[in-house]
């Protein structure tokens, strides 16, 4: 009886499945326990945030930045040594230094192409001698390579120079130290908000494929990605402030005025976290090991959090250091809309006034942030996901 054989086999399969409890999770032989790394990673993520929170009451912005960097540095040195990534890291750092040099050189040369009228407030009223004296004062009469060499020499003495026109004579570091903290606070808050909202949204979207959350999230993502940020920022400010009955401008001491800037700034990252997490989770769900786990009878919730989510989150981690660092730059839109005295519009402002030392310093800082952020992201990936290796394999390309 072929059918009865089939039936008995099925019964045996489901019976065994029902009776036996799942065997306890075996410890993988030969694999190193990843615990010490976990400490390093969490220190890396927690330290800067903790530092920011601890220092948020004080005005010591410089200390804050330094602490953030220190936290990142300590975490990474630990990880790099632990994972034997020293050679790779050094190579990347060297490459980054070269890149940085090229960027600074290009910007330096481009800046020297700006019209000289831009260096004066009242160019028409000055005669030639006065113009020449001022240009000489700014050091613009020398050939470009000489100017560049002087700049480099000063740079290696730890001197970023002083502003010439934005706030004449003030050291650039002190200008930045005054402006950066507020951008960092707002940036960190919006980053925290976007993680808190974006990741559950992405996970909910992946779990309820073509359900309510998926539809809602898709509409949200399309709106945020397609509509230029300026437009929805302006509308949030316009209707948000009148709905909440508050002033359109930011006031540092009134916490209510922090809500809208932080919220609008987080929208873009909420959308991108949700979008990428959904995509990675769906990729992960379709993999064979998840099918096996499901056949084995792992409860759906546990499956989602222990297996799918953890693996799907790995590729997203690489953007976190960069976005942490990028909070220093602020947002041009948000800060100009709400009149926040942060870093956002500073670069545009100093380019407009042709304050060359400021532009050079800022471009250098921003590029550094981008490069270091990328490097840290790559390292973090390698640390978290043991499958990723930066050692070249022969014959594979």
């Amino acid at each position, binding site marked *: *009886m*072929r*059918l*009865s054989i*089939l*039936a008995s086999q*099925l*019964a045996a399969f*489901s019976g065994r499945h029902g009776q036996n409890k799942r065997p306890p999770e075996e410890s993988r032989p030969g694999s190193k326990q990843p615990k010490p790394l976990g400490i390093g990673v969490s220190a890396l993520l927690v330290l800067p945030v903790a530092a920011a929170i601890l220092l948020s009451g004080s005005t010591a912005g410089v200390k804050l930045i330094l602490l953030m960097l220190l936290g990142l540095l300590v975490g990474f040195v630990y990880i790099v040594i632990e994972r034997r990534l020293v050679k790779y890291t050094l190579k990347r750092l060297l*490459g*980054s230094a070269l*890149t*940085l040099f*090229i*960027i600074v050189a*290009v*910007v330096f040369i*481009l*800046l020297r*192409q*700006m019209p000289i009228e831009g260096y004066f407030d009242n160019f028409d009223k000055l005669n030639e001698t006065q113009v020449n004296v001022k240009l000489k004062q700014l050091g613009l009469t020398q050939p470009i390579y000489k100017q560049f060499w002087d700049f480099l020499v000063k740079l290696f003495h730890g001197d970023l120079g002083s502003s010439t026109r934005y706030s004449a004579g003030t050291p650039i570091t002190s200008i930045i130290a005054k402006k950066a903290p507020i951008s960092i606070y707002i940036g960190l808050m919006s980053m925290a908000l976007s993680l808190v909202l974006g990741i559950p949204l992405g996970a909910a979207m992946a779990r309820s494929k073509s359900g309510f959350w998926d539809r809602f999230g898709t509409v949200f993502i*399309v*709106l945020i*990605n*397609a*509509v*230029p*940020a*300026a*437009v929805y920022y*302006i*509308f949030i*400010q*316009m209707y948000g402030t009148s709905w909440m009955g508050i002033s*359109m401008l930011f006031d540092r001491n009134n916490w209510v005025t922090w809500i809208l800037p932080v919220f609008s700034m987080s929208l873009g990252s909420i959308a991108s976290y949700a979008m990428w997490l959904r995509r990675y989770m769906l990729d992960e769900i379709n993999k064979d090991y998840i099918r096996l786990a*499901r*056949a084995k009878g792992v*409860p*759906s919730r546990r499956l989602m959090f222990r297996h799918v989510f953890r693996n799907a989150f790995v590729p997203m981690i690489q953007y976190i250091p960069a976005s942490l660092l990028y909070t220093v730059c602020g947002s*041009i*839109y948000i800060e*100009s809309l709400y009149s926040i005295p942060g870093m956002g*519009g500073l*670069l*545009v402002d100093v*380019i*407009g006034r042709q304050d060359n030392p400021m532009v050079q310093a800022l*471009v250098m800082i*921003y*590029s550094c942030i*981008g*490069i270091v952020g*990328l490097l840290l992201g790559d390292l973090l990936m390698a640390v978290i996901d043991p499958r990723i290796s930066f050692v070249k394999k022969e014959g594979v*390309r």
Partner: protein
Amino acid sequence: MKGPFETKKRRLEDSVNAAVEKNLSREEEDALFTPAPFDPTAGEKTGYSNYSYWRSTFRAFWHNRTALVMLVVLVVLVAFTLLQPLLPGQYEANTVNNNPLTGIQLQNQAPSTTTSYMTVPAGTVLLGEKLNDDWYAVSNVASVIKKRQKFTLTQYGPDWCTVEYNGTTGYVKNNFQTSLKLPEDPENTPYQSYSNFQLQMYTEPADMTNGGESLYAAASDLTPLGDGRFETAGATELRTMPSRSPFLFGTNNIGQDLWARVWSGTRTSLWIGFVVAVFEALIGIAVGIVWGYVRALDRLITEIYNVIDNIPTTIILILVSYIMRPSISTLIFAMCLTRWLGMARFIRNQIIIIRDRDYNLASRCLGTEPTRIMLRNLLPYLVSVIMLRMALAIPSAIGSEVFITYIGLGLDVNTPSLGNLINEGRKLVTSASLRYQLIFPAIVLSLITISFYIIGNAFADAADPKNHV
């Protein structure tokens, strides 16, 4: 936990058990398992399918209803944008519209769908002034009674009073609180009265003005009676301006027609987006193919890519816009400088994946020239993804244009673009009545960017062979 898997398993079990319980005989069971007869023609069958990549792609695309709706919206929008200047009765985007009588700019006129202010019946006598061959400025204000003037009130009515002033008879609005100072017993006419404020004396008990200003009537509707008076020939529409075309989106703060500016701006922005997308595709494809296909160049181009990619895009955009004079070509140039990078890397990765597939190896062994392999074997594979990136490049180029304008480096207001319209509108958000100057450009902009985005994504989904059946 009740997943779909459990349900399916249970259903299978149930059906098998049901069959077992029926206790079929061997013959019955054999009947269920009939072997297929031998068919020699089946061996001759060839696996022909009329599968066509593009047909399949379009079929998948037609099934996406949202994308189809957006496609219709986009086609209508773009067609309308291009045809708008050819439509009758359109204003010029940069013409400052003045009130023809006073010469004052028609500033911040609220949006309206008509210029018709009121309709008067045939035989109405109006005082008119010739504006041009087609239009007359008309009103029924016989004269203006200035502040603190004495006049005689000859007849009292609840809404209108008949007055005599300087020898002319006319009607004034009966407004107790403000304009007319009336005695205790106002119905006991005639008596002398004073005007508290300036009053208008109408020829009829009706106000045929726009808040005291003249209205406009077409010359063909008026029969001159001489002495500056006209009689309407039929039911006549009195208009707020000497034109039948209204300011559909209102006017801006110097009296330019926002409707014309929005469509002209859309043309500019679409043009920028389109040109940037084309250049992005051209440069990106050229670099990407060479980068992916020519092994010797891989290292070099990768290093160059790393350098350029590390410069923040904003900095390049800002610096280039500063050094060159703001114009459409500057914007296009500045955006093209960085945008091709993403496309090139994308193409390169794709090329590397398909470069060493067997058909390419075979092609190479047959002695095909590299250029032919690149253009004939590799490029067609990438058409769908290139189109996707081009579709997404347009909204993001428009977004960059808005950004550049926002920081004050964009096109000047004489070249309307969606960017500078939004930037102009942004300055007016504090007064609620002027917000339409932000809302209209923002709606058009959002419609365009959203539809490009959705269509691009839907097309990419449809073009992905994984989604073909």
